[in-house]
């Protein structure tokens, strides 16, 4: 791993700044600084783009880098590779690594997932989409917005989308969260959290609020009065939780029905 950086002027001492999110170069390590011949090497060896990621440990960056190398090996033409989901949360409470590959090509997902598992020890959850499909998802689906609100990408991206409320799609997505009401006792904490997150993201979206991982988790705390960790740990007061869940579910469903009634999509 090499990092190319510029010597900056300081008041008492000059310095070389390096990114906070990096592989290696831990605090306290000794390093060599030497002049670079810019004619030979202009580009840094590695560039990763971070979106709303404050900190990420270097072991995770190494894994991300490995995933990028694997995808690059199997997919000839792709527009971007995006890592998202619980893998990017602090700590190591993830089940898999969510990888979004933007390409028009058909990909053998099993081979890639197996290679990711073999080289990183983590299950690769690979989602393949065309850029057009991603834009459509971002326009109509709050979960897509949340997915890209915190991510790591191989290339810089900007998606300009116009939010389009598609009430039938939202109805379909909301209906999945009904599962929690009938099965509270048998679902584990992670399953409950996924269903609550789906519900609250739709609720916020219907109320034209911004959808990010933070805003959804914050709203879950507001509505249910519990930290999302309590949901993931499956330590909930069933009666109180179900009452609030039903309330938000019904509010969302009524907004959707009103949208359908008024002839929107």
């Amino acid at each position, binding site marked *: 791993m090499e990092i190319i950086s510029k010597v900056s002027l300081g008041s008492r001492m000059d310095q070389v700044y390096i990114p906070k999110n990096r592989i290696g170069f831990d605090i306290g390590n000794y390093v060599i600084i030497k002049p670079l011949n810019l004619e030979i090497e202009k580009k840094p060896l590695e560039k990763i783009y971070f979106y709303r990621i404050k900190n990420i440990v270097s072991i995770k960056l190494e894994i991300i880098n490995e995933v990028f190398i694997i995808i690059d090996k199997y997919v000839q033409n792709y527009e971007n590779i995006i890592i998202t989901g619980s893998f990017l949360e602090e700590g190591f409470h993830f089940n898999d690594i969510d990888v979004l590959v933007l390409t028009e090509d058909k990909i053998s997902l099993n081979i890639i997932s197996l290679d990711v598992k073999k080289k990183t020890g983590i299950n690769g959850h690979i989602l393949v*989409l065309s850029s057009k499909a991603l834009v459509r998802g971002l326009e109509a689906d709050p979960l897509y917005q949340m*997915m890209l609100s915190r991510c790591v990408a191989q290339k810089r991206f900007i998606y300009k989308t116009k939010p389009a409320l598609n009430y*039938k799609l939202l109805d379909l997505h909301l*209906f*999945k969260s009904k*599962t929690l009401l*009938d*099965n509270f*006792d048998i679902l584990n904490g992670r399953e409950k959290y996924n269903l609550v997150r789906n519900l609250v993201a739709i609720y916020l979206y219907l109320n034209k609020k911004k959808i990010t991982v933070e805003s959804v988790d914050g709203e879950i705390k507001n509505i249910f009065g519990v930290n999302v960790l309590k949901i993931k740990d499956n330590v909930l007061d069933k009666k109180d939780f179900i009452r609030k869940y039903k309330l938000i579910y019904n509010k969302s469903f009524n907004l959707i029905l009103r949208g359908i*009634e008024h002839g929107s999509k």
Partner: protein
Amino acid sequence: MVQNRNKLIELFIGNLFNSIVHEILEKAVSKELVADKYRKELASSFEIARMYREKINPVNRSLSDKDVFYIKNKIVARVKSELMIRISKGYENIDLELVELLTDKALKDVKIS
């Protein structure tokens, strides 16, 4: 947790009902649907229904005609009622003819009928 047979049947019905409504709504919006692998991770009602089925005796063969009649009628009625809420608000493309077909298929798949 020990649950009695009637309770298990009701839980089974609730989950199969969810699964069938979802399938019909999915067909109604299929053209607008974007790949949804994210939500495919969500707990699937059909799989939960299957899990409850495995706890309802007899496990390895069909239930009695009386049970099948009760379960099927209850699912069909609930699904139709859920879909009618939407149709009454102007939701188009919902195919009510699928209700019985999908219910029969699902009940066969889980060895209820």
